[in-house]
């Protein structure tokens, strides 16, 4: 019997020791994450040790002090001394654990003297990253195809952990995250950095990291945020400083190009075919989560577009809703998220898909905001 217990204990130990890579906390790539990992392992071993002692005694009693062995029960049932001992010893063990925990925590909460500030905004169901020191930001959406999720296509290696545009950060810089949300509470979590920070709508929270190694690190939203909570991953691409600078420069110049493009779009129209193709793309990536690819919505939760008053009625009203959102509802204002051309295309798509054959073709110019006119 002892042998079984000891073998079992050894098995547990060895399986844990080898489990490091896949089924334990990641060691991570920051000083903090490594401290957290060490703390985790220390406390884990302390728990194992206490468990072995307590359960060891218990199993000893279960084996030796059995009625079937003809044992007569002892009569003792009180001892103040023993009660005091087993109150005090755990207390000191706890103090021993609390000291390193406190040190690590104080370090984690020191957000001062950051080199780079990134503002992270969660919304249903995507992340928005803004480089605070530059006028530049982008949305980061799940890039796994719906076919993979529906099991009609083979799943890729990074299934559900891949995005269209990852956050890019440099190594060896103190990066400060300002975290907030647009609608419900989300939580930005990258295990390799040991950073998890809730994004509360209307409030701003801070966290920081300093990454030691370049690479691609993946995480997920960690706070239930509605239907597609499981489908808003986080991908961070960490580059050496020089490459990071190059990346940033190229991004900043492409922002300028995009603005010029926008002007061109205003002057040149799309054909119906172009609008429908582009519109379908936009619709599936942003709108289909709620209104469903079939345009039928989810009754009681998200309204249908197919045969709806909005999609078949006044074009101006339709544009207004897509661009400015609907107050006190999950319908966001997409005016600031999408280019005029994409807005026009998706509205055209909604007015002509699923048998909504209005024949309306909306152009970028039609969508242009009243303020700009």
């Amino acid at each position, binding site marked *: 019997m002892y042998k079984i217990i000891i073998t079992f204990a050894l098995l547990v130990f060895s399986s844990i020791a080898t489990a490091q890579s896949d089924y334990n906390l990641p060691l991570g790539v920051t000083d903090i994450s490594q401290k957290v990992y060490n703390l985790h392992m220390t406390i884990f071993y302390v728990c194992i040790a206490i468990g072995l002692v307590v359960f060891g005694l218990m199993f000893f009693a279960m084996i030796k002090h059995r009625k079937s062995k003809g044992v007569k029960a002892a009569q003792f049932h009180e001892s103040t001394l023993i009660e005091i001992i087993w109150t005090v010893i755990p207390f000191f063990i706890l103090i021993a654990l609390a000291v390193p925990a406190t040190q690590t925590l104080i370090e984690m909460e020191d957000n*001062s003297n*950051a080199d780079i500030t990134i503002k992270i*905004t969660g919304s249903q169901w995507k992340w928005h990253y803004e480089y*605070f020191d530059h006028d530049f930001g982008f949305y980061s959406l799940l890039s796994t195809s719906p076919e993979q999720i529906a099991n009609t296509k083979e799943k890729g290696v990074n299934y559900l952990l891949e995005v269209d545009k990852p956050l890019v950060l440099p190594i060896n810089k103190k990066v400060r995250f300002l975290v907030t949300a647009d609608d419900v509470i989300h939580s930005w979590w990258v295990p390799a950095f040991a950073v998890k920070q809730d994004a509360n*709508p209307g409030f701003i929270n801070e966290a920081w990291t300093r990454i030691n190694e370049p690479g691609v690190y993946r995480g997920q939203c960690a706070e239930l945020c509605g239907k597609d909570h499981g489908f808003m991953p986080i991908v961070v691409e960490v580059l050496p400083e020089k490459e990071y600078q190059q990346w940033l420069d190229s991004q900043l110049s492409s922002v300028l190009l995009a603005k010029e493009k926008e002007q061109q779009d205003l002057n040149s129209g799309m054909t119906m075919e172009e609008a429908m193709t582009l519109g379908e793309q936009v619709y599936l990536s942003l709108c289909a989560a709620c209104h469903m690819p079939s345009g039928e919505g989810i009754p009681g939760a998200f309204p249908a577009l197919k045969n709806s008053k909005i999609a078949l009625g006044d074009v101006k009203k339709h544009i207004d809703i897509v661009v*400015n*959102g609907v107050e006190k509802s999950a319908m966001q*204002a997409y005016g600031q998220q999408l280019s005029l051309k994409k807005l026009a295309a998706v509205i055209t798509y909604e007015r002509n898909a699923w048998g909504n054959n209005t024949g309306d073709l909306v152009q970028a110019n039609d969508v242009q905001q009243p303020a700009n006119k």
Partner: protein
Amino acid sequence: MSDKTLVHKKNNQLIAKLVSVVMLMFLFGYALVPLYDVFCDITGINGRRFVQSTPQISGLNESRLINLQFTTSVAPDMPWKFSPMTKTIEVHPGENKVVKFSATNISPNTVVGQAIPSVSPGIASLYLNKVECFCFNRQELKAGEQVEMGLSFFISSDIPEDINTLTLSYTLFNVTAVNQNKQPI
């Protein structure tokens, strides 16, 4: 029989006490709302403590510079463009400063907005004094209207040494539907 009535009486007294505990705890649940506000006002924990102050005239501390960042968010149902005209400034504790924010209503309707402030680190909100702020009132913009909104503030000279970066965030909410009267926050 008298035994039974005695027990009944004892029971009823006890029930009355227990029911009042229940009632009190229900009220306590509600009392947590103002208690939380008071607690936040004292400790600044949710970064939300803001009172109108009069301008500072003394206590300028030129030996320290604090990096102040401004950022804005716009609620998803809010058809305005809203951004700080200065993203970062450096201020001495005790120094009076004015910064401007720009807001544009890009919708075809009149919309009322309310900006809600939040400071990080939360504790710093105790030292950020606002003399005048657009967030004290609701703002109404007609279709296409654009305004510059001012914020006049100073940082108390007793701000702790370890705070050297401070972020002030405004989230702009659409309150057109609930705009009965202009309440200060």
